[in-house]
């Protein structure tokens, strides 16, 4: 019986499937149209198809899913009817938020509004209680009054309640008692406690994160339960069923259902994770992942083999403060539209033609020229090579759109206009890459650009060249690369607890005690997930700052109990990290511990990506013809190759176009391409 690992990455247009036969190492991929009204329908269809084509009895021993169910519910305002309970007198925390507007246009825009709260004031109740900054109760919890308040929420039929009391991270007992009372009064109701979702100082971020969790939890837990039921029905019985999280790690179905908020920024996480692991496999520690799709481009920096995490993020203007992969997103994709304004300024983006009507060349009624139209006119894309020939692109429509909307208004030749539009979008993506690299003190010459997504490999060559990067890697399956990342992640649970204190006044025993408690929690959860002790790893860290600063720097801690001398080393470690992150340090200034962090990792058996042996096929056998392609103002005859026919070890000079099912790669003149043993394409600039 063949054992498979199966992953599904659900996107807005397509659901990507990857199946790995664990015995043979054979990888198969599929793309099916997504079913947004009920995403699990496409998933089940894909798995049934996979089982059918395997042609033998199969066992799926591992299933991992990247889902946008939570994200979409948030974006579309389709979460549960949710109530909020706050400390008496503090209804203002949620609607005021940080009070400031985002930088840029919003500062000038009289019509700007913060996103409407997910919970109205009429569903916000106050709890008579108060805890001070040391965790001492200043005002006891008034349970009788609370019961009355909860009954009012019950009468409004809320399906979920968020609880965020001041300093609950120091004194969780009040939060916990509130949950008991809510459960007694509204038995069916989900309850999200801020002391569990994010026991971290700074009430607004804790509250906002807890509210998002409460708002999504009923939706996501229902979706996961339903998916689980259907998976079992088609024979996927394994306990190893996972959901991807924003931190790049997975959670079991049960854990994800409890912590819905951890999934909302998980979309690009699979691709970054896959980039990290693929880089590790081929011995590259420093890469920039470059994932360009139809509407946006996600870039992330991987340094010394690890992706960077940020501790805060935003989705649709809503704040959340959970560890997530540090990904920079820019509006640049195949569907990005070019226009000319009345002052003759050529603008590319941020508007996108999306999937409907899509680029003009799709022939679905789109009239505005897009990046895809330009790539077609320039010869990078062929009329028949798109989606493995399943979709015909209409060059005449692309030409007409570029001509009428850009070339003629600017007095440019058609092809100059197309090349100019692509140059502009490339510069925007270059600036996005600089923002996460050179602007933070990294030298791009030390980094390879890891290009994937439907459009990434079309643009990567030029961007790499312009930025002076070491080269480009295009993986074997760039169009489903995110789903490949889901094959090889680990389970990750993050825990945080804030307890603000000057470092000099903290005893090592106190630090050890807090870490031990958190570690016990991590171990218990991972054991509950089914991990044996030898498959569990626990990491510790402290968030520290110079006294009075408004942000913290994460400093890793040893896993063993700390001794007094260790605190001194932590202090020096903090100064060093501050120096490397911000360019200076202040060894004389007092330092505070703000939060304790523990990360529990459940390690899955690692897999190797399949290696290939040379078949001896000649490069010419992979050649499908040639066409005129425009590079930097000159049209050249450019050979077209079928990517999967190119042999391991092939080594050739650009220009060349490589076509495959869902992606096209451009190797520019002056660049050299070779295929490694995993069939990654490695493109380097000849200098």
């Amino acid at each position, binding site marked *: 019986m063949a054992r498979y690992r199966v992953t599904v990455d659900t996107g807005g247009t397509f659901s990507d499937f990857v199946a790995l036969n664990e015995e043979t190492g054979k990888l198969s991929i599929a793309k099916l149209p997504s079913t947004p009204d009920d995403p699990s329908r496409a998933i089940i269809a894909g798995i049934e198809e996979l089982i059918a084509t395997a042609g033998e009895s199969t066992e799926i021993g591992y299933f991992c899913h990247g889902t946008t169910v939570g994200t979409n519910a948030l974006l579309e305002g389709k979460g549960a009817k949710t109530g909020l309970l706050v400390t008496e007198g503090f209804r203002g925390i949620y609607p005021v938020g940080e009070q*400031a507007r985002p*930088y840029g246009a919003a500062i000038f825009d009289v019509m700007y509004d913060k996103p409407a709260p997910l919970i109205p004031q009429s569903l916000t109740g106050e709890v008579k209680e108060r805890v001070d900054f040391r965790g001492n109760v200043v005002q006891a919890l008034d349970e009788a009054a609370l019961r009355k308040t909860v009954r009012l929420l019950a009468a409004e039929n809320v399906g979920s309640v968020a609880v965020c009391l001041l300093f609950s991270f120091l004194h969780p007992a009040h939060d916990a008692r509130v949950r008991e009372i809510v459960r007694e009064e509204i038995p069916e109701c989900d309850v999200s406690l801020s002391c569990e979702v994010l026991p971290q100082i700074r009430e607004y971020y804790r509250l906002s994160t807890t509210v998002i969790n409460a708002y999504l939890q009923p939706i996501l837990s229902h979706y996961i339960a339903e998916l689980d039921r259907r998976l079992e029905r088609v024979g996927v019985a394994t306990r190893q069923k996972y959901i991807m999280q924003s931190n790049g790690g997975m959670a079991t179905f049960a854990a994800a259902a409890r912590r819905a908020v951890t999934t909302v920024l998980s979309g690009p996480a699979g691709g970054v994770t896959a980039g990290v692991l693929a880089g590790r496999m081929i011995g590259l520690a420093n890469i920039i992942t470059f994932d360009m799709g139809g509407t946006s481009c996600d870039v992330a920096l991987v340094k010394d083999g690890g992706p960077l995490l940020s501790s805060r993020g935003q989705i649709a203007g809503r704040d959340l403060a959970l560890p997530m992969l540090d990904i920079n997103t820019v509006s640049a994709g195949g569907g990005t539209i070019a226009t000319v304004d009345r002052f003759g300024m050529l603008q590319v983006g941020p508007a996108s033609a999306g999937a409907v009507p899509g680029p003009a060349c799709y022939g679905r009624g789109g009239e505005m020229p897009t990046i895809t139209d330009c790539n077609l006119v320039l010869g990078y894309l062929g009329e028949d090579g798109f989606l493995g020939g399943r979709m015909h692109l209409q060059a005449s429509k692309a030409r007409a759109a570029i001509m009428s909307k850009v070339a003629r208004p600017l007095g440019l030749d058609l092809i100059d206009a197309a090349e100019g539009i692509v140059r502009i979008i490339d510069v925007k993506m270059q600036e996005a890459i600089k923002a996460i690299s050179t602007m*933070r003190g990294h030298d791009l010459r030390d980094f390879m650009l890891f290009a994937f997504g439907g459009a990434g490999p079309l643009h990567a060559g030029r961007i790499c060249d312009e930025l002076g990067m070491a080269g480009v890697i295009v993986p074997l399956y760039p169009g489903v690369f995110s789903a490949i990342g889901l094959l090889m992640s680990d389970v990750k649970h993050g825990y945080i607890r804030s307890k603000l204190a000057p470092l000099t006044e903290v005893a090592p025993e106190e630090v050890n005690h807090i870490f031990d408690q958190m570690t016990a929690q991590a171990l218990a959860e991972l054991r509950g997930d089914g991990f044996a002790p030898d498959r569990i790893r626990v990491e510790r860290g402290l968030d520290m700052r110079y006294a009075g*600063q*408004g942000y913290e720097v994460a400093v890793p801690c040893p896993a063993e109990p700390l001794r007094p001398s260790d605190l001194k080393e932590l202090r020096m470690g903090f100064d060093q990290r501050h120096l490397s992150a911000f360019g200076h340090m202040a060894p004389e200034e007092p330092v505070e511990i703000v939060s304790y962090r523990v990360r529990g990792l459940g390690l899955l058996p690692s897999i190797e990506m399949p290696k290939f042996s040379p078949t001896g096929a000649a490069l010419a056998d992979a050649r499908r013809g040639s066409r005129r392609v425009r590079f930097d103002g000159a049209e050249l005859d450019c050979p077209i190759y079928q990517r999967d026919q190119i042999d391991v070890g092939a080594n050739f000079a650009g220009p060349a176009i490589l076509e495959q099912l869902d992606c096209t790669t451009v190797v520019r003149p002056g660049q050299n391409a070779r295929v490694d043993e995993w069939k990654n394409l490695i493109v380097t600039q000849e200098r």
Partner: protein
Amino acid sequence: MEEPDRDAGTLIAMHAIDPVDLEVVKASLSGIVQEMQNSLFRTGFSTIVRESQDASCALMNARGEVVAQHVVLPLHIGAFPACTAAVIDAFGGGIARGDAFVINHPYQGGSPHAPDIAVITPFFVDAALFGFCGSIAHKSDIGGPVPGSCSGQAREIFNEGLHLPAVRYEMDYRRKGDIERLIGANSRTPELVLGDIRGQLGADRLGERRLDELVGKFGKQEILGCFDRLLEISEAKVKQAIAEWKDGRFEAERFVDDDGIELERPVRIQVVIEKRGDALHFDFSGSADQTKGPANIRPPLVQAACAYALISLIDPSMYVSSGLLRGFTMTAREGSVLNPRFPAPVNTYNPTIHALVDAIFAAVSHIVPGKARADGSGSRSIILGGRNTYTGKGYVQYEIIAGGAGARPGKDGASGITVNQSNAKIAPIEIIESEFPTRITRFELIADSGGAGEFRGGLGIRREYLNLADARFSIRSMKHSIPPNGCAGGKTGRAGDIWINPERAAARRLPTRYADYPLRAGDTFRLDTPGGGGYGDPLAREAEHVLADVCEGVLSKEAAEHDYGVILRPAGRAWAIDAAATQARRAQLKAEKAKSAPR
């Protein structure tokens, strides 16, 4: 890479910039100022630069005109050209590669006030001056009678700290130590101030390196051509929009509560706009004479306030360059609060700028269809000084608290949000209480504080504090005596207020600007921030929206009846509209209004 065509092309570049090159250069310039800004935020030493991010960076051409600016602080659009002009005036042909200049003089440059120090570096291509890189950052302290250098009771700029005219800070990329020693000796926080200045210099030098790459790629003439074109397009965009507005002469006025010294005397800010064709002139001559206290502002700020309002009205996402400033003209009478004579004090400029922006909006919105808005709360800060909870060291607890925004055509005003050019974040309660001996006892939006209107003003904020140790208390607020105006028939918002020990026998109300009130342990205080003004006739507000406001706690049932003529009756646990009573009440209110309206 060799590009033989490029040089031939540059001969005509001054007239025909390639539209693709222009967009690529523009995106690159935006990237450069963003990178300078990030560098400054990263390496700046003080919390003011890093947390409040009270700093901005720009690139200027050889005439000192801003060709790219990262918009964090809109007011600096006026300060950069004025500071650079002062450098050119002072050093002219003596400016050399490797120089760096600092300047913070409000009269001999364009700094809003002394703490805003500009660092300007020249950029050369071949042997010729090509442009400047600049940064301006607010410093924690530059001397003077009070910490932070902004005394509400200053009577001349000599009470506002150390003032530097344009002086050379570096020569041939080497620091001249004397300027640093001078600054260091005049600040209460010399390490922070010098650390930030060095951070600014680093940002400027980074800008030079990136500009150098850009010029290397496109050629000198092409980049100069792009600079000119970007300025022209900004100007053309402003003029084009102005040309579409209707001609005429309109005026508006606003009042600042007081100047900090003469507490009973509001300060008038008045503007007359004359619009003909694509020409727009702002005349501020009717504004009050310069004040004794620090309510005065210098013309570069007046110009920036005009630019701020125009960007808002024309296109909030437009590219910001000095070309905008060429799109209009202005007169600020010498000796007035908007063009004071040396050495009138200028340190607390925010109330005046808010009044100015509000007045400009009120005047211009007569001719811009659909862009009128009611006034918002302005901005304010409170400062408590005392001893730290942990360390016993002196501390300064500095908080900036927003209020309600004005209502807009078709939209209610936002609640608890920064308005106009102000944009600071609110400090977290849990951080404040952990660091300072204070307990916050209330933080909520104030019901009924939004001005009534067809579209309602945003709500102000109420914060109440229990002081746990003795401390000195200062406030710099606005719109406590004179509430935010409504628009198009909308009512004013609720004014702000500050009370020490409210609801106690010893209750005391403080003036809008007040320094150094001695708070005792156990004292409480309550700050109410203003609500935004309303837009349009309250009687035209949909009764359903009034009902929704009452259900949300935004409006009391009484205000619904009194301000909006909407009568509610209990329905289960909530309220329902009494349609007949509402119709009658609204008819009656309309009749009363018609009778009292001047004919």
